[in-house]
């Protein structure tokens, strides 16, 4: 079966984990890995797996995009260079999936709005944050039943799974996630809290989602909606589990989640990173299916 060819920009932990996932896909074919450091282990690993690589950044790949038929690119670098990467590749008709916090395109949380984005032929979608991918589906699970005036998420991640970029700009996580909790989750107001826990062995990502409903919560409908959403997310993150809840306390509805990764390249406890690469893969697959089905043509 024909596959859509992809490029990964950023051969770090995220980029490499993404590569493992893309290699399993029935509709995606990773052909390029782009880095900036000739000594990068990630580039070497990608080469061993048969990918073309460059250490000259996106510029090193541009001349080959057409010939190699690259149609989708993943950016797993940093917010600072994302826009430049995206502009250059969009100009060549390559659709961009942004795993950085740059968020120049619309937020994409697959079970909520992926279909809509594919339908609108977006050329750049942003994967929000790990905390956002893990929690926003559950905010939406409540808000699609009834009005949520306030949603708050607490993401607890193991110290080992939080890289220097996130640590240097932790406000970006808080700000982006709060915004997306409201905008994509469907709450009037959103708040996000991130806690980093250094325990050994590392803890598996935990997420708590509090929703405050306007009217008293419709218990049965919310329970069903949460269950359905859980199954949706589990399609691309099998280790997405409801540990407790939904708990109903007055107008508060709370779900307690755990996100275990697949352990492709990243360790299993780093469910926070896995849910990003899994959601990005899911997103690319949806676009790829549209392209393969003749419903979507990317315009250069």
């Amino acid at each position, binding site marked *: 079966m024909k596959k859509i060819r992809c490029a990964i920009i950023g051969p770090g932990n995220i980029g490499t984990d993404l590569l493992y996932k893309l290699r399993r896909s029935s509709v995606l074919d990773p052909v390029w890995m782009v880095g900036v450091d000739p000594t990068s282990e990630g580039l070497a690993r990608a080469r061993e797996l048969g990918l073309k690589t460059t250490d000259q950044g996106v510029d090193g790949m541009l001349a080959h995009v057409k010939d190699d038929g690259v149609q989708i690119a993943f950016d797993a670098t940093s917010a600072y260079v994302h826009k430049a990467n995206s502009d250059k590749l969009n100009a060549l008709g390559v659709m961009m999936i942004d795993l950085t916090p740059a968020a120049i395109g619309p937020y994409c949380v697959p079970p909520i709005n992926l279909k809509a984005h594919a339908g609108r032929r977006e050329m750049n979608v942003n994967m929000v944050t790990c905390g956002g991918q893990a929690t926003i589906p559950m905010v939406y699970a409540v808000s699609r039943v009834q009005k949520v005036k306030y949603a708050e998420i607490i993401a607890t991640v193991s110290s080992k799974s939080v890289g220097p970029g996130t*640590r*240097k700009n932790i406000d970006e996580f808080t700000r982006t996630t709060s915004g997306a909790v409201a905008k994509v989750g469907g709450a009037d107001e959103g708040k996000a809290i991130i806690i980093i826990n250094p325990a050994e062995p590392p803890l598996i990502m935990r997420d708590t989602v509090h929703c405050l409903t306007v009217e008293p919560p419709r218990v049965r409908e919310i329970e069903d909606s949460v269950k359905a959403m859980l199954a949706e997310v589990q399609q691309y993150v099998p280790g997405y589990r409801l540990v407790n809840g939904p*708990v109903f306390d007055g107008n508060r509805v709370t779900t307690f989640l755990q996100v275990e990764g697949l352990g492709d390249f990243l360790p299993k406890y780093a469910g926070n990173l896995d849910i990003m690469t899994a959601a990005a893969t899911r997103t690319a697959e949806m676009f790829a299916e549209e392209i393969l089905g003749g419903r979507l043509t990317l315009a250069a």
Partner: protein
Amino acid sequence: MTNKLSGIAVKTHDMSLRDGMHPKRHQISIEQMKTIAAGLDQAGVPLIEVTHGDGLGGASVNYGFAAASDEEYLRAVIPTLKQAKVSALLLPGIGTVEHLKMAADCGIHTIRVATHCTEADVSEQHIVAGRKLGLDTVGFLMMAHMASPEKLLEQALLMEGYGAQCIYVTDSAGYMLPGDVAERVAHLRQHLKPETELGFHGHHNLSMGVSNSIAAIEAGARRIDCACGGMGAGAGNTPLEVFIAVCNRMGIETGVDLFKVSDVAEDLVTPILDFPVRIDRNSLTLGYAGVYSSFLLFAKRAQAKYGVPAREILLELGRQKMVGGQEDMIEDTAITMARSGRYSTAQVA
């Protein structure tokens, strides 16, 4: 010992209107804040912390919504003070630089950027912002009992490198004994820049608040957190009036009037308490097991709702090495424990 510390000047930093927000479920009114702050000001307390118990931006379902916003508290308290300055606490991951700017605009003098003792590198943007705004900028290493003196130094050096002018050894669990405090503070004193101040923040869960603070001073700390009337999370912070009395006896100079602060404790703080902040079986457990002090009331509420004894919940949170801020895991843990069926009175929701 008296001679050795005699004549040393120590800056006391009152916690009753920030850490004291925990036992009050963040419901201290603006009027109560103004009255207590004025009393502390008159008694000569040089620095008073005012915010939600969990710092700027702490207002949440997770930690509780306060009676007023951080901005309302700060704008109400700061203009009424004659000599005392006001500080605010900020935990990166909860509060942001925007909150910090707001607090600076309200006229705070000091910003304290708090991280878990091994995660100092999340504080860079906030410490840099604090210095840029011209604030007295403090790095506050919480749950310091969980890191060795060497690890704590590595983290303190990061904060100092970002620009922090003072580093705190923070005994959030009230777990440390004087020797634990002394070795950490002494190690920091030996290796940080001489101009970097050191501070100690104690909790009284094992009744060690005052002794630990004195041990910290001996090892080189010059800022000590206390709370008037001992109002703070768990069994409270080091009681300010007791600490001042001990300092007076030892010749340590605080500039705080003992009788005036004991009057503030007795006449203004004690009357607003919802329950006596003291060492009971649960707050004792915090100190004994090394658990974050503000988990106390959440564990009690979980006991009431799920029938699992608070002490058992706190011990389990300690076993799971929960850190400050993980209040959400208290209800989760209680539900999981209740489901185990070992607690016959459980009424699982």
